[in-house]
């Protein structure tokens, strides 16, 4: 097993910058954490999931699709260097796996995979959550994993790329510590999962009345933050800008919380109220995706609950649903 000591972190990642385009958890000037570059601020592996979705490395909020010049269509350019993206929690890795499936299914999203293919993914786990809380061990689905044991970072590798990156690091014998983290992770990993399963069952059994969604919808200001922060939200819009000598097509993250998202050409909208749109957002993740993909597509990364200014992120709504409608049935 390899180990990365805190004092070696800057040098380790700086060395990687010659081979990769780096995206790492960093601390910005006002204390906001993000997955950015070394120039953005000091590396900040501690602190848990970053507020923005880490999958933005492969599909930014807005990015080019193609440029049309005098009849020729030029695709958006490839990433110059391979991406190295660190900072995925275990739940983020689940999200990544889900959208990899999504973007590969049927019509393969070549723009996404131009960034994603060949990218090295590094997870973080161990005692590096908020205030040193435990983030469950990931155990795979990425190329390597940095496990915080409270003092330093144990480095676990799961692919050749991961092994290559960790090769130069010193060895350590920390099996006992790792075992302890693994045991603790087994309990921590399930927190919230049961709740979301129960919420999903309520929805699929049609036990949540429309009046509930009206209440939730009344608290939604359509900021779209829930969608824009969600790593498994994949919907996007497309726009064309006509310049003097060329036309640029770009695409941007879209939101099912917007009226225009589902509006038909006739002007009719089958989801014409906040209540219906809020219902759809949660229903899609907890009831529709299990039908199509065989799993709930909310992996409880927590971002929508953090970004929502009125407290109606998916976990909050699921808790309210379970509180109110499981009890009602029992009564």
């Amino acid at each position, binding site marked *: 097993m390899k180990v990365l000591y805190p004092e070696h972190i800057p040098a380790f990642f700086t060395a990687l910058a010659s081979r990769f385009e780096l995206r790492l958890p960093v601390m910005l000037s*006002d204390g*906001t954490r993000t997955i950015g570059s070394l120039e953005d601020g000091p590396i900040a592996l501690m602190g848990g999931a970053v507020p923005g979705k880490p999958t933005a490395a492969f599909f930014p909020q807005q990015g080019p699709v193609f440029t049309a010049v005098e009849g020729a269509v030029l695709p958006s350019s490839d990433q110059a260097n391979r991406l190295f993206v660190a900072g995925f929690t275990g739940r983020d890795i689940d999200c990544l796996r889900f959208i990899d499936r999504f973007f590969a299914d049927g019509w393969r999203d070549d723009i996404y995979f131009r960034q994603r293919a060949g990218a090295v993914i590094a997870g973080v786990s161990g005692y590096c959550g908020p205030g040193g809380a435990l983030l469950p061990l990931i155990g795979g689905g990425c190329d390597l994993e940095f496990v915080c044991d409270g003092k330093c970072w144990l480095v676990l590798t799961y692919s050749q790329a991961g092994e290559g990156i960790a090769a130069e690091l010193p060895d350590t014998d920390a099996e006992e510590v790792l075992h302890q983290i693994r045991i603790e992770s087994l309990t921590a990993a399930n927190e919230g999962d049961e709740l979301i399963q129960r919420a999903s069952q309520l929805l699929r059994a049609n036990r949540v009345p429309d009046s509930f969604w009206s209440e939730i919808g009344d608290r939604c200001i359509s900021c779209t933050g829930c969608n824009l922060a969600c790593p498994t939200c994949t919907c996007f819009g497309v726009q064309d800008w006509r310049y003097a000598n060329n036309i640029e097509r770009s695409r941007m993250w879209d939101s099912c919380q917007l009226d*225009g998202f589902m509006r038909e050409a006739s002007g009719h909208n089958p989801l014409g109220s906040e209540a219906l749109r809020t219902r759809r957002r949660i229903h899609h993740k907890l009831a529709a995706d299990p039908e199509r993909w065989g799993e709930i597509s909310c992996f409880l990364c927590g971002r929508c609950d*953090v970004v929502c200014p009125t*407290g109606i992120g998916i976990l909050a709504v699921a808790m309210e649903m379970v509180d109110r409608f499981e009890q009602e049935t029992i009564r």
Partner: protein
Amino acid sequence: MKRTLTVCPYCGTGCSFYLVSDGGRLVGVEPSTTHPVSRGGLCVKGWNAFAFVHHSDRLTTPLIRRNGTLTPASWDEAIGLVVDRLRSIQQRHGYDSVMFSSSAKATNEENYLLMKLARAVFATNNIDHCARLCHSSTVFGLAETFGSGAMTNSISCFDQTDLILVIGSNTTEQHPLIGTRILNAAQRGAKLIVADNRRIRLARHADLHLRHKNGSDVALINGMMHVIITEGLMDRLFIEQRTENYAALAANVADWTPERAAALTGLEADEIVAAARMFAAAGRAMIVYSMGITQHSHGVDNVRCCAALSLLTGNLGRPGTGVNPLRGQNNVQGGCDMGALPDVYSGYQKVADPLQRQKFARAWGVSTLPERAGLPLTHAMDAAASGLLRGMFIMGENPLLSDPDQAHARHALENLELLVVQDIFLSETAAMADVVLPAACYAEKEGTFTNTERRIQRVRKALDPPGEALADWEIICALAERAGYGGMRYSGPSQVMDEIASLTPIYGGIAYDRLDRHGLQWPCPGKSHSGTPILHMESFTRGLGRFSPASYRPPAEAVDDEYPFVLTTGRTYFHWHTGTMTRRTHLLDREERTAFVEIHPDDAGRLDVRDRDELLVASRRGEIRVAARLTAMVVPGVVFIPFHFAEGAANALTNNVLDPESAIPEFKVCAVRIRRVV
């Protein structure tokens, strides 16, 4: 990838986010998670605030009208032409024959510099900006009653209050992140009174929703104060120790029985009594208002009433209380603070005061400064229409869409000998100009904005402006230099702020190195002062809080058989003012693509109108075609039209009647007729 911390360019809430750029192109935003106002969230406009910046319509070179057509020109030629023609007009018609219109979208430094340019270089106090159209009645009314025309409390106070009275503010749509504080307050059990006849989102959460008639706010609040005094619910100690002129207020509201107020407001007397009791019973009560209070021919009286209600109940100078006008634009507070107003220098220091004139003249290196107050923007348009004003320099505003009575505004602008517009897009007003100067947008320059809670915050440059566009401050300095004035040479906006701080006591402690994280709230008089979240804590800025009694005056234009509907105007959630930025933002434009009129289904039924029918809406001043939107959001007899759309311009209909004290137009009430286009 690069991340640049900055402030949202839309409303006055002052949310903070990082602009994310890649290879000189913006690719998104990320909210600041530590910011005390936005706390990791944004509204839909904030999330999309990057998306217009690279639009292909951006102005990239100066334009000069030649043979009727705007054609590209060099900066040298354009700057020379502007200065020469302004000078020429002044030589023939006097210094006050030109007007400078500053911008609540521009930075503090730019507002200060345009103010300095007008006064020190062109020797006129004819400088104003769109605060005239939104909160001039607040500045007047609260200065009179409290001594300071700004929001008394902080946005964090919503987390501490027991009651919020929202009157004339659609907060979740117009100041969305403040709106969410109110929603959260209601959720935790704070009382919420919404006084607005539109059934806005907040009304769905309100303990009381008062749907009073447009323009009847004075009657409503006088009625509430009558109940409070009659039932002995006022804060006697506060009145005694902290206020003056109470007897006059008590006398004024003595005959404002709930029944009398009910007759004028269209409410039940019981509703007024209930509102009064609920407000007075709260330990900490906040009043929140916006354009529904200010944009009336009696806007100052409305503000006086809000101030009096808070004074009467002792709801000032403490956390969770206050009179909280929500400033509309990102930097409309700053535009006022910087003296982009006809009667004051920065920090509300009066031009009529010889000592102030002397202070600024000395600092600016000029022998004299003009002493007579200049023209308010609304009067300037009248003066242009009548030929008294000959030249106008407009920075970042679009009066052809935003001013009342569009035909009048068009005539005024057409009547000018010289119209110069400095902007980021060729707005409807810019398209009429003789000279157009291309400016950098907020993402392309350094500076500061001051939000509604008086928080001065850094705006930072994420990328270069397109083509030859320059920051507004650079253009203003170039104009000054060409006019032969050597007092506007700065290394950058930071140095401008140092000058502002040296001349402006309320900004005295402001310097860029002190604003790095989350800014400072003025008054901040010294470099070691940590800013002032709540005004009037120990004493009011003017000493004692003054009760200013207000008499009821109806709106200037009443409905009649010919024009049977009340038209009220405003904004939608997805667009910003005249749409120059939001209509060029894909997702926002998609949400609201066309002009519409909200009409109650009962009225629509009577007119045989169905949803999305094309309607012709006409007032005594003009007519427009807009799509019908049938909704119970409005009450029967009242229609609402947003003013974003050039092709269905609400301000073709509005009434250019002004409040006599603040010169704010009555955007909120005029009479219209409606028919279906067949």
